[in-house]
């Protein structure tokens, strides 16, 4: 995260207040630099979390029969997952479906949701894959 000049000015003012007006310039500089570093690292921990979104992509296919969308969406709804996009195609007896789902407000993490979907996929004899959106973004967007 980038700190603006305005913020640096405020940090400097606060530092001078806390160190006293007679504090030597180098000491203030050092203090400010370490504070800025602290803020930068705390808001951007090791690695690159900036690319992480709370979205997951569900891909499902199999032999079409009633109740597939209902079962999947009910599970999402029970878990407070927000469906952002659905696209679906029927090809003869087969269907394919893709959903983009926001799970940031869900109380469950991706793994527990995956487990629920595994149950549904066994019950309905269809395939369901649940993957974090990052992998699609990394592969298909620069």
């Amino acid at each position, binding site marked *: 995260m980038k700190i603006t000049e305005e913020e640096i000015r405020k940090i400097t003012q606060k530092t001078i207040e806390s160190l006293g007006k007679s504090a030597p310039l180098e000491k203030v500089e050092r203090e400010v630099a370490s504070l800025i570093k602290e803020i930068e690292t705390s808001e951007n921990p090791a690695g*690159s979390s900036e690319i992480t979104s709370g979205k997951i992509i569900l*891909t499902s296919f199999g032999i079409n029969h009633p109740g597939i969308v209902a079962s999947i969406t009910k599970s999402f709804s029970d878990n407070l997952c927000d469906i952002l996009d659905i696209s679906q195609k029927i090809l003869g007896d087969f269907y394919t479906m893709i959903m983009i789902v926001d799970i940031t407000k869900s109380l469950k993490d*991706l793994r527990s949701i995956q487990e629920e979907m595994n149950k549904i996929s066994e019950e309905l004899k269809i395939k369901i*894959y649940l*993957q974090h959106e*990052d*992998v699609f973004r*990394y*592969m298909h967007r620069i």
Partner: protein
Amino acid sequence: MSYEFDEIVETIKMTELENFDIRTVTLGINLRDCIGSDIKTTKNKVYEKILKYGRHHVQYASEIEKTYGISIANKRIAVTPVSIPFDCFGSDELVELAVTLDKAAGEIGVDYIAGYSALVQKGFSTGELELIKSIPEVMKATKRVCSSVNVASTKAGINIDAVNMMSEIIKKTAEVTKDDNSVGCAKLVTYCNIPEDNPFVAGAFHGVSEPEVTLNVGISGPGVVLDAIKEAGNVDLQKLAEVIKRTVFKTTRAGELIGRKVAEKHGIPFGIVDISLAPTPAQGDSIADVLKAMGVEDVGAPGTTAALAMLNDAVKKAGLMASSSVGGMSGAFIPVSEDQGMISAVKSGNLTIEKLEAMTAVCSVGLDMIAVAGDIPAASIAGIIADECAIGIINDKTTAVRIIPVYGKTVGDSVNFGGLLGEAPVMKVSRLKSDNFVNRGGRIPAPMRSLTN
């Protein structure tokens, strides 16, 4: 952000149907601070340090696998070349140390730990000699420890004394592990221009210029490239290069993502992504099949080297565009026993060791997983290693030899190493002698870098 239907289907197809996986996430650990006053304290320090960083390696990798729906085939550990910090120990003590490495790897739950290594391209230190001497015993006494010895580099030339020594060590390792088809040699690589950040076992180690601990990742994906080439149909070679690049770009991006995420979970820096196309014995995960799909009748046909060169180059170009952290070997691997297509090409007599050697001039990583008759003279192995090193130093690239003179087997036999190591038909090697050349000893001087013709 929205995605096209086709894009999502493409990713699912890669991960579910085309064997796209992350071949390895390798945790590199610095052991230079683990030297103690005697072997006992040293062993304790080494064990504690590996456990400290590696304890959760398998668990973290598995969690990331589930989150992204991309499987990670291997979780491994690489350590500082053992001969560097532990130069003061004798070969018996070094064997004890290797057993400790083996135990630590077992405790963590990884199948291989690499770094029982020495860098002797210019000459030997006392400790390095002890380490090389101990290799056969280590290969016998441990299951998971992998060893590599660098005997040549573009800057130093080829240490023929080391080449001779390694050929003897390889023969001896084959003998002491004869009950397991000489499998010890499958965990021992002789290198030229060894990279310091290679995540692929058996040649991995944690280089001296690496940070305290780092996570490197090796991607895979011959299956994905194969399907892309098949789908492209009969297009010209420029278009084909484009198809390969497009595919590898995506697999590299996925590889880097997985590596970064595993590193993030560990709370350690991410190192590199090695973009090598690495085959497995699984059907459809073969470099040989890719070459055949490009148009050669079988591996070994005239044109094979050109096809491989083009494949390797396209892989590199795409990988470099996709990631700013490309490192390690980053080429196409052509191990014989680990690639179903290569195995059948050798069995049918289409692929000879000489053609393989030519192919290694344009790809990584050399004569890899080659089984030869157990009675091959050590001087012939030395000659083979020297040839590979020559290709490496002149072309300023990494080459290596992982040759298995299977004890008691002859040409026509076949050896099964099991698992990822696969099955190797015993290959024919010329019976012409190289003794008088390699027995001269000394060092082939470093090559010149201009007038490169």
